[in-house]
């Protein structure tokens, strides 16, 4: 009852959204836990039970950008290999700070163009965040303190190919720069061919009196292997058909079929950290970032050091992957960073049915030059890749579907839509062939009716990731007189989220700029970082002590302590400012003689009179 009233109030207040949003937010907080998701209106209706071509995707981004100009804008961050504009939607609320003044999260999809639902997942993220801003308190808060850089289609050329040309669930993964895969000096001259004209590349079976397979008499679209074991009487059974590979011809007459398809490289093996040439890593490209698609992203990220989290969506398998991609780079993931990854990934495994938290090289396969690897290892960004969709979603019981289960799923749930009936055709080299099988939608991609759920769950998990971006506050500022006119100013800065302002990787490799803690308003005699607020001595920063450099930043769910010795009269106002590339700066002012927390009066005083108090035997000597 209460809920429906609220919903009504909400609907009628749409015209006064700015004011009512806050009221609604407050009111919603009071609502007991519910199971249904609040239906929130959007200025742009987008269906998430369908997939979008590159042009349609661009049009949807444009609609969003036009509908929410105060919250987002569309930026062309580059031009693809074949000359298509590459689009990024940037979501930022300028009222809470310009881009670059708050932490950023980068989210992309479809660098492998065949992994199509990753594009819709990014589009869903944009759509949901924009409509929820001002309506859902949690998401409003996330949007207000974060800049989102969203690229639905990293590889628009491949997207165009996948939708407009015959493909398999695995093809058009590559960018589309003509590439001489077989080294014969010709480019893309022998790709597969859509012999039956159905828009898919499926499989071929050639007629063969000594065949390995026969058609299932009850289901002529099913090929059944004949046993290689002789019958009891010693004779051997043969089928009528043998597998003849992917649908296509030997277009260049070199004796191999379909060996030089469009493109033929892997842009997610083309990023700098740990990049290896093609004799180690297939598809790596001739050098790191040789493709405009990859280079534009890296150049953008290098210009946006506020990016502290990243998600690059792929399909398939239901995985939440982190690096390293190769065992040799294990040492590039310091223990402290791994702890952050573990917390985020494990949460993902709870939120995403049948998804597993995994490490790329250990649990999947070795990858050199992946985007998330560069983000994590080269830039110190907490970066993940979700492999969207898991076939267990077909099942009620969460088991891996059997061959029979898949057949029933296709027949009963999809009405046979992803299967192309076998058709007899004449092949110039093979004679009679059967062509057919799974369409390009037949694996890796959720059926449209499940797309929205898949997109929402992954969006929700990625918002959990975004919510872990560093958020700083002053935990304490204490001033204590050491001697007349000399003050000890001790400050602690807390970060309540999981991601530190500087990852251990960033600190170790001195990536980007260190954080800085500045004190102004009184002359600083010396200053240094403390291991804890209660430490009595510090290692002095000898030069420019009023501008402490904090290479290690503020840890996740922890705090940083620092102390300044300043001179000045009691009551002198001083200002402290903490700046970080990956967190919103914070500033506070106190007067000498004031403290924001009440120290234990029994604790050792810094006053000269107390200095004679013997140090505990266990007390560590001041660090030299």
């Amino acid at each position: 009852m209460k809920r429906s009233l609220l919903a009504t109030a909400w609907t009628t207040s749409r015209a006064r959204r700015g004011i009512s949003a806050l009221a609604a937010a407050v009111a919603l907080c009071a609502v007991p836990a519910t199971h249904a998701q609040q239906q929130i209106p959007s200025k742009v209706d987008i269906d998430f039970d369908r997939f979008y071509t590159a042009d349609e995707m661009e049009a949807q981004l444009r609609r969003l950008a036009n509908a929410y100009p105060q919250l987002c804008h569309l930026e062309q961050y580059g031009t693809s290999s074949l000359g298509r504009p590459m689009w990024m939607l940037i979501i930022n609320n300028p009222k809470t700070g310009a881009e670059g003044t708050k932490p950023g999260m980068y989210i992309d999809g479809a660098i492998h163009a065949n992994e199509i639902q990753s594009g819709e997942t990014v589009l869903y993220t944009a759509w949901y965040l924009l409509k929820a801003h001002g309506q859902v308190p949690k998401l409003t808060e996330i949007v207000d303190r974060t800049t989102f850089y969203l690229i639905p289609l990293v590889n628009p050329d491949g997207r165009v190919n996948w939708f407009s040309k015959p493909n398999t669930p695995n093809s058009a993964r590559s960018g589309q720069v003509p590439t001489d895969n077989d080294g014969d000096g010709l480019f893309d001259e022998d790709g597969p061919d859509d012999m039956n004209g159905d828009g898919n590349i499926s499989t071929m079976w050639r007629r063969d009196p000594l065949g390995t397979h026969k058609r299932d008499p009850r289901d002529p679209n099913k090929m059944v292997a004949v046993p290689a074991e002789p019958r009891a009487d010693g004779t051997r059974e043969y089928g009528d058909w043998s597998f003849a590979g992917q649908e296509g011809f030997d277009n260049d007459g070199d004796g191999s079929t379909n060996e030089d398809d469009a493109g033929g490289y892997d842009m997610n093996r083309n990023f700098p950290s740990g990049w290896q040439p093609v004799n180690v890593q297939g598809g790596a490209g001739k050098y790191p970032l040789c493709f405009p698609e990859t280079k534009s992203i890296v150049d953008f990220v290098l210009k946006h050091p506020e990016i502290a989290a990243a998600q690059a969506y792929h399909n398939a398998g239901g995985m939440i992957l982190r690096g390293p991609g190769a065992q040799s780079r294990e040492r590039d993931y310091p223990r402290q960073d791994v702890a952050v990854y573990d917390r985020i990934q494990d949460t993902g495994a709870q939120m995403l049915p049948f998804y597993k938290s995994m490490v790329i090289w250990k649990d999947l396969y070795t990858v050199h030059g992946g985007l998330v690897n560069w983000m994590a290892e080269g830039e110190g960004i907490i970066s993940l890749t979700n492999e969207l969709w898991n076939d267990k979603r077909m099942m009620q019981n969460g088991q891996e579907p059997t061959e029979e289960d898949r057949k029933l799923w296709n027949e009963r749930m999809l009405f046979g839509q992803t299967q192309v009936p076998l058709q007899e055709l004449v092949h110039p080299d093979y004679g009679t062939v059967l062509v057919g099988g799974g369409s390009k939608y037949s694996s890796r991609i959720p059926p449209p009716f499940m797309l929205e759920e898949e997109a929402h769950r992954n969006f929700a998990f990625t918002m959990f990731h975004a919510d872990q971006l560093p958020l700083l506050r002053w935990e304490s500022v204490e001033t204590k007189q050491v001697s007349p006119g000399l003050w000890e100013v001790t400050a602690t800065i807390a970060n309540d989220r999981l991601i530190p302002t500087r990852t251990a990787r960033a600190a170790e490799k001195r990536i980007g700029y260190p954080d800085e803690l500045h004190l102004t308003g009184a002359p600083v005699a010396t200053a240094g970082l403390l291991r804890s607020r209660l430490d009595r001595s510090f290692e002095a920063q000898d030069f420019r002590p009023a501008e402490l450099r904090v290479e290690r930043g503020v840890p996740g769910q922890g705090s940083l302590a620092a102390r300044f010795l300043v001179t000045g009269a009691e009551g002198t106002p001083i200002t402290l400012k903490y700046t970080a590339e990956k967190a919103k700066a914070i500033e506070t002012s106190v007067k000498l003689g004031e403290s924001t927390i009440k120290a234990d009066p029994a604790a050792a005083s810094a006053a000269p009179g107390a200095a004679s108090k013997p140090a505990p035997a266990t007390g560590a000597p001041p660090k030299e």
Partner: protein
Amino acid sequence: MHTFVIASIVLAAQASPTAPQAPVPAAPAAPAAPAPEPIVLPVERRNSAGLATAIDALRSRFPTLISARQLATSVGKLPIPMLVLSSDAAQADARPGILLVAGMEGPRWSAGEAALVAAEVLARDHADLLKQVTIYVVPRANPDAGEAFSATLLRDYSGNAYPHDNDRDHKFDEDPPIDLNGDGFITQMRLAGAKPPWSNPTVVADAADARLMKKPDATKGQTPVYTLWNEGIDADADGRIGEDWKGGINIDRNFPHRWVEFEDEAGAYPLIAPESKALADFVIANPRIVAAVILGRNDTMVNVPDGKAKTDAGIAAMLDEADVAPYAEVAKAYREALGQKRAASNDTAGSFLAWMNAQRGVPTFGAQLWGRPDVPPKEAAKGGPADGAKDAAKDAPKDSAKDAAKDPPKPAPEAAKPEAPAAVTEGARPEGARPEGARPAGAAPPEGARRGQRGPRGGMGGPTAGPRRAEASTEAPKPMDEDDAAWLAYSDQVRGGIGFVPWTKTPHPQLGEVEVGGWVAGFKDNPPLPEVRPLGEKTGAFLAKLAEFRPVVELREPTLTVMGPGLYRINAELANTGRLPTIERGGRAEGVTPAHVVRISPPVERIKSGRRTDIVRGLDPGEVRAYDWIVAASPEELVEVQLLFAGAPLKSFAFRDGVRVDAPAAPPAAAGRPPAPEFSAPRTPQPQPPSSTPIPTSAKGGAK
């Protein structure tokens, strides 16, 4: 030889009055034949306008053989010119090519000069070769560094003009090294007993020569005495001195093979420097380049790689073992041509050289032009004079002081005064006299050497600590870095002391008084000016020789045997009759670079035996691939055996009805992609720089 003498005379005549008066190597009596007038007169530290003038001169002297293109524009907006030596500019890219690259570093000015001279020599003496082979010459691949070094202030640095905040304080180039003593060089500063907040001492003076700094030998109870800095001040009050200078990316650390992530000079990612990328893209776009030579810091000519070093991923660090033998032959030819016996070894991580061999498979050679020359053996061991000569003399053989007197550099007057801080050598410091706050021996690198920043060269000893002389011994102490000591001897005895600025007391606004001194930038990198043209001539001759070594892929005349009605056996051979592989192992992976393709025309179903298409990724010198096809063909059908490269037919043989017939005319070989824009020289006439800004021979304390 005659050209050699004339060139030397011409050079001597045009050399500036203050140019080093190093002895011109004695030449045998010249024959009477007149020598052609040299076009390129090497100069020290040519600026980009001077480079354009030289290129213009070469082009106008050899208009039919030399053209120029602009490879790219540097970060500092300077052109990167490339000379194209070919009898037919339009066909140049369709012929086998050899690439010569110089000028990747700033201080090594002689490499670019030698490259220009080599271009002249090739056009002058090898016009016939240029009908078959195209030679590309990039005299200055890193024009920003070259331009910086053509200015008046010399510094050992090779970055391009890419902005870089070295000390990560949000300010760019705010604390550059400064020439405190006004000698025109950025050298080093040392201070004994520096105390916090300034960096603690890390080194001691080497007893063998107090000018040389070395790590203290902790096993002998030595403790650090000196702190070393770049010459400069702490302009930004961060406690570090001269640590944030202009630039940049060292383009020869910015290539993808063994690129060093997070090294300051290596760039944010491989080929981010437009200069590096231009070279890489040029090589990739021109698969007919069969070999390359890089005149620069890396040497593979004297110390030929053995092919054993591997990367973490298990591929060749430079060269595969199987490619070493032919490679070594070229290196030998180079040594014979240039006479170089000694070479410095440098780290090739991220270099153009390593990338070319290991990832492109193009045989590419690193040449330093010259190495440290010999000095008379009995002189070599002596320490040169310097401030601190007193201590050096104490530990050195008896005649050292006498040597010091007769063999300048003359110590600066104030250094000779008794109150001047004498260098504290390793033997002179009392045991246990550890300065306040001293770190353990050898613990700290010199200021500026952190995070991959290259410290000032030559300040520290070599990687291994040499044995220290016994306290009681009368033997001369052995220098920790014998190579540095030998350079010093060469500088002192042959070059009038121009290579090393003696440590000299200089007031410092923050440290009080320091000593400024150290190696002169570029001294070890460049031969004396008069030797440059002869070395360039020899480089040109060597390149002609290298062109003769090039791989030559031949499809030999096939034979045909009739095996039955309409059934033929056709045998053919593909051979590399050159002395280099077509592609080294590093470039043989599928799709790296176009392969040679041998194919036979009938469709696959009528090729009863043999493969219709053979993709040949790499053919070693002397390697022969035999083809044995059995084909069924109708009497009227033309059966063709073809060799192709990069999609274009190179050679074709045809049979009809079992009889050899003329092959159908092949279309002309593809001429490659459209040429790069013509190089247009900046038209502002500018005098050559050297006469105004030579390396002074009279660098403080130099020979008079």
